[in-house]
């Protein structure tokens, strides 16, 4: 499988978008080499603002820029972008519906080495609670390019999270990204898994394993965590014997919560949540080790599917 860096693709795409739309400006909190906003800085030094390690001011300052018609992209690690400046995003950006774009980089457990302080398992939950906030996660380097176009075009605040590690390429280049669309990555008829980000490729591997056992798993790439139409989500669960959700995020408040809110009262089968079970991560020397520890693996997903079908 081919792997590519989502962050690098993002940085390159933001530069391209900045050439077309001169209102795009970028703000950074001293993590430009990680978030890859450094590419925008190099291309357009006059439209780049190093806000230094002061995320709260960065968020509200970006709101001020948006008041003059700019389209500010603010950058930090996902935990700081969503957590440190939650209230600034809520008040200065959210209540005013300002068109500020918030990039939460190194999301989930992908900052494996830095440990619990820098891993982000709450950002989807936090951002979903802000009225009017759009919440996105691209599955690969191709999709993030379409995501940037969609984010620029959307009139209003958007939060998008990005994995730090190189990610398997699952989509074609040049595909249009539609906010609110759930992408079917693999057809299936026994069970359906709603997955986002890094979990999509793991779910696809699980589907391969299950096929050998005669079990058919439908795999969805939920690149929009909000807004998600309830009837639309229900249409994917209809006729399935089990529903699963998989996210590199807490099982509280994220993708699982979004899906459960939609299918509550209509879907009668088992629903399995794969995510962080109300616990923090820790430091590891490589990404795979922490993914294995928390059982973000094809084998675990396949096992959960089989168990859930047996429970029916």
């Amino acid at each position, binding site marked *: 499988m081919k792997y590519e860096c989502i962050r690098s693709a993002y940085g390159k795409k933001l530069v391209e978008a900045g050439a077309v739309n001169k209102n795009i*400006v970028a703000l950074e909190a001293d993590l430009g080499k990680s978030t890859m906003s450094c590419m925008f800085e190099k291309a357009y030094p*006059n*439209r780049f*603002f190093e*806000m*230094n390690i*002061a995320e*709260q*001011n960065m*968020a*509200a*300052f*970006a*709101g*001020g*820029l*948006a*008041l*003059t*018609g*700019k389209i*500010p992209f603010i950058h930090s690690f996902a935990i700081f972008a969503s957590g440190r400046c939650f*209230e*600034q995003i809520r*008040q*200065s950006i959210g*209540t*005013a*519906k300002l068109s500020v774009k918030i990039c939460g980089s190194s999301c989930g457990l992908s900052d494996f080495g830095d440990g619990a302080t820098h891993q982000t398992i709450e950002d989807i939950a936090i951002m979903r609670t802000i009225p009017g906030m759009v919440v996105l996660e691209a599955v690969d380097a191709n999709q993030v390019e379409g995501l940037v176009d969609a984010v620029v075009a959307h009139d209003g605040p958007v939060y998008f999270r990005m994995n730090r590690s190189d990610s398997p390429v699952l989509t074609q280049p040049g595909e249009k990204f539609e906010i609110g669309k759930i992408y079917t990555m693999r057809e299936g008829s026994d069970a359906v898994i709603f997955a986002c980000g890094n979990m999509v490729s793991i779910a696809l591997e699980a589907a391969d394993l299950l096929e050998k056992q005669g079990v058919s798993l439908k795999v969805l790439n939920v690149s929009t965590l909000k807004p998600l139409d309830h009837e639309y989500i229900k249409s994917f669960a209809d006729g399935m014997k089990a529903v699963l959700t998989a996210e590199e995020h807490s099982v509280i408040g994220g993708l699982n919560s979004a899906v459960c809110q939609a299918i509550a009262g209509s879907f009668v089968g088992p629903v399995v949540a794969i995510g962080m079970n109300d616990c923090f991560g820790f430091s590891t020397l490589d990404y795979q080790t922490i993914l294995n520890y928390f059982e973000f693996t094809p084998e675990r997903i396949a096992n959960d599917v089989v168990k859930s079908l047996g429970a029916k």
Partner: protein
Amino acid sequence: MKTVDIEQLNKKAALIRYYVTKMIGANKKGHFGGSLSVADILSAIYFYKMNYDPKNPKWDGRDRFFLSKGHASYAQYAALAILGVFPENELYKAKQVGSMLQGHPDMNKTPGVEGNTGSLAQGISLAAGCAQGLKLDGSNSKVFVVLGDGEIAEGQVWEAATAASCFELDNLVGVLDNNGLESTGVIAERHCIGDIKAKWQAFGWHTIEVDGHDMQQLVNALDASDEIDKPVMIIANTIKGKGISLAENVAAFHNGMMNSEDFDAAIEQLESQL
């Protein structure tokens, strides 16, 4: 230089105080203290200094105003009504369901409000970002922001102060409503705030200290800010509750209440200043 009629500006400040008091009413809690202390400052900014067309509050070439101490919103609403941005009768519908006037400023509900402020410290960041955006556009517009002295305990204020000086935002003018009181008492007695002037200077701002109830001094300071090539903080020493004797320098009137008798006396006192 614009002509200035100090007496008129004083009367408009008095009118702001009168409207604020009438808006809150008798036997109801409201942010009297900070709304009354800031009235002269708002009068000098809105009715003298700002380049503003009340008939076209979204005109691109306008100066911008942000009330970072958003709990004094009634004073801002009074000023906007006096300017004619919206009718006076809207003032008396404040906080009612469907009203354009919220407890704290809301740009999507109130004509003339430039940003959503009142979660303390955020207004100065918004103002600085707005000043930066105007500079990118090559605009000559200025951005005014009013902060409270209780508010500057927030770390974000100093993040914004650093950014404004780092980005050389010479189109940004702050006024600190330095009334010495916060909700629960005298700030200096409750928490060491330090040398306010030295702090702003250390963060790269030019400071001018004035009596915040002396209109001539306020006007002179605002005019002087035009000539400074860095962000300016006008430290305006004020009296919380200014204009109503029983509210002056009383911390409880931060968000206080008057009984009918006191309210009538306050209105009488304010009317005498109109």
